[in-house]
């Protein structure tokens, strides 16, 4: 726990989305299931072209993990798709049909460490925090039996949603709190951790209702600062997984359901009202935006308002790791002014860096000095840019410094080859 709590208090603009029901949007156009990064690495498919597939039916295996269709439909073939976050991807194209056929796994009766991880792998559960398969995370963090470190470790389901617009985790807490807690419990069992809880920053009335529902000891309330750095008030090691992944693990263990759908928040001033929508993975983003009534002229930002990536083209599949899509009307960009030295960027930096100093060194081309300024500790949360009264892109500059530190001379060409 840092000596001084840092971060910035963001205005919450979640609207009615956390209280409204989740809108289920089914695909009408083709759904794209990523198979590989390049055409040359295409895996051997288990299904033939133009054959009918059920939701959850395995298409192929990549690294011994199944890749399945997220909707029931017709497998047309494969195509290359350009994704703003993952680059070009070879995808299987599934055209939806009227069929509602769903393939499930057998439920796990008495889950233990190995069966839980195996179920997470077979159900292809992705952690929505970072888009990494849950099974990989569990395998990496799993402790040996009688390991003392397990006593000092705590598994946390992150349901904070401390972004301005995002509220999908709050929806899970509203609709599937008990399932999510069961999933978390099972994940903790897989890791051999004895302690686990859900960390949230819900409004007081909803927090009380949640505590009544799943027990006071299972809920930890964190502060309102962005970004969240305190998931637990003890000094123990904290391991975080997403709340949607917990709910999916519970569904996989109890009903054998595969992880085919995600809950997504579509918000911003380019949509009539913020909504949480349940969509299948691989669905075209354009379809989701149309279902939410988004302004076609508005800018679409993939991710939250603090770290999201703007995308020009919205025809790409929705993949795990994204829980918020913002539709923002274009607004005047403030011209950056010289740094006036207010020091707010240093005050809010949760990594304890000196962002203004890093930017100054970068601008003055003192690259050799950058390595003394711990630029690698920056995770790009954007709090420094948010508070900067001079309107400077501090976070972007710090990330640039992180990339270029010490190696700028190599990037000038020729030197590394000599």
């Amino acid at each position, binding site marked *: 726990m840092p*000596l*001084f709590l840092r971060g910035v208090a963001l205005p919450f603009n979640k609207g009615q989305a956390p209280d409204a029901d989740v809108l289920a949007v089914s695909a009408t156009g083709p759904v794209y299931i990523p198979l590989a990064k390049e055409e040359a690495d295409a895996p051997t498919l288990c299904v033939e072209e133009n054959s009918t597939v059920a939701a959850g039916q395995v298409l192929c295996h990549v690294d011994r993990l199944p890749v399945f269709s997220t909707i029931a439909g017709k497998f047309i073939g494969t195509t290359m798709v350009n994704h703003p976050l993952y680059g070009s991807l070879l995808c299987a194209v599934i055209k939806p049909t009227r069929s509602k056929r769903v393939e499930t796994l057998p439920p796990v009766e008495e889950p233990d460490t190995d069966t839980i991880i195996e179920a997470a792998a077979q159900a292809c559960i992705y952690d929505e925090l970072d888009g990494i398969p849950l099974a990989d995370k569990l395998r990496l963090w799993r402790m040996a039996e009688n390991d003392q470190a397990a006593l*000092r470790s705590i598994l946390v389901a992150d349901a904070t949603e401390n972004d*301005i617009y995002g509220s999908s985790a709050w929806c899970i807490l509203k609709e599937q709190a008990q399932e999510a807690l069961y999933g978390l419990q099972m994940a903790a069992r897989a890791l051999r951790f004895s302690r686990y809880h859900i960390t949230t920053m819900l409004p007081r009335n909803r927090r009380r209702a949640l505590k009544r529902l799943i027990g006071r000891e299972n809920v930890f309330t964190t502060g309102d600062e962005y970004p969240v750095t305190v998931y637990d008030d003890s*000094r123990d090691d904290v391991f975080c997984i997403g709340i949607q992944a917990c709910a999916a693990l519970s569904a996989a263990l109890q009903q054998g359901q595969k992880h085919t759908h995600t809950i997504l928040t579509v918000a911003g001033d380019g949509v009539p009202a913020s909504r949480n929508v349940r969509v299948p993975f691989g669905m075209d983003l354009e379809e989701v935006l149309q279902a939410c009534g988004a302004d076609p002229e508005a*800018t679409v*930002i993939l*991710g939250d*308002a*603090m*770290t*999201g*990536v*703007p995308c*020009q083209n919205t025809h790409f599949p929705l993949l795990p790791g994204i829980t918020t899509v*913002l539709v*923002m009307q*274009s607004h005047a*960009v*403030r011209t950056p*002014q*010289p*740094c*006036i*030295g*207010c*020091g*707010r960027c*240093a*005050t809010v930096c949760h990594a*304890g860096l*000196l962002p*203004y*100093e890093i930017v100054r060194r970068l601008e003055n081309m003192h690259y050799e000095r950058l390595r*003394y300024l*711990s630029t690698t500790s920056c995770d*790009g949360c*954007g709090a420094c*840019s*948010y*508070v*900067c*009264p*001079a*309107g400077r*892109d501090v*976070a*972007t500059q710090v990330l640039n410094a992180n990339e270029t530190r010490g190696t700028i001379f190599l990037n000038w060409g020729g030197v590394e080859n000599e």
Partner: protein
Amino acid sequence: MNNITAPHIRTEAASRHLTRDVLLTTLPLCIFSAVTYGVRPVLIVLFSILSAIVSECVCCLFRRQSMQVIRDGSAAVTGALIGLVMSPMVDYWVPMLGAAFAIIVVKAPFGGYGRNVFNPAAAGIAVLSYCFPQRMFTYPIASSMNPLPTGMSVGDEVVTSLSLAAQLRADATPSITRMQLILGDFAGPIGATATLLLVACAVYLICRGTISCWTVVPYFATCALVAWLFPAAGVSRMYGVLAQVCAGYVLFTGVFLINDTVTTPRFWFARLLYGVSAGVLVMLLQRIGRVECGCCFAILLLNSIAPIMDRWSWYVWRYVTRFLRIRQEVKAHE
């Protein structure tokens, strides 16, 4: 659209809001002075602001920069601060000269607002105090009954007195009561005698986030400690503390001059060090300096080492916290 970078939402605060806050706090000080001395002090401050803005415009012309720069309000703040430390009976051209010097010599050559190394207001005051000490440090006796004339110069008919700071430096026993000190009923610069108002300004600026309590609180604590440890001759210890801290420039420096964001350190630990060292240096120069506004020289001296103070205090703090964290982890694993 491609050049849009995260975050896609920004705080409403802008650089000009910070300077606006400071300008706003100078308003009650002017009003207080106007009540005591008539319209003349207000005119002095206005002329000073005008001179600063005109100088900034001239510099913009030379640098082929847009005149929009003056909208950030930094020139106005410099002018206002120089005007506020003038004697109420000073000739109008004196603060105008100081403000012009501050902008043309101290601020513009370094690249304008945000790039200056020294505090322009402190430099302007320092130059004036060395060039025109007679004009700057002759104060009329505070009286709301006889407002000062508004002509270019004030004649000999005005009753003058030494300022409190000068009396303390001369080891004289001031005749001002504690209540008068707190209410600001004593001879001194235009905006530097209203003790209660200055404290209120400091609280307002801290609450607005314009100035940092990491500088202000250590500064005043150090000033009070030094005044308590080395009391002025001929007065009681507690009265000495109150008189030395409230005597004109020390309080004004603590609220305005040491909090110029551009020239002070940004890291909290460096700000703390800066506040403490400013306190020691200001009290030292107040006591042994040639002129009674030694604080300006203290500020200028500290401005030159502020960037180094900033970096090195961060290095020290970083290594200390890292060491503590490692020790804690080692303990946890034992």
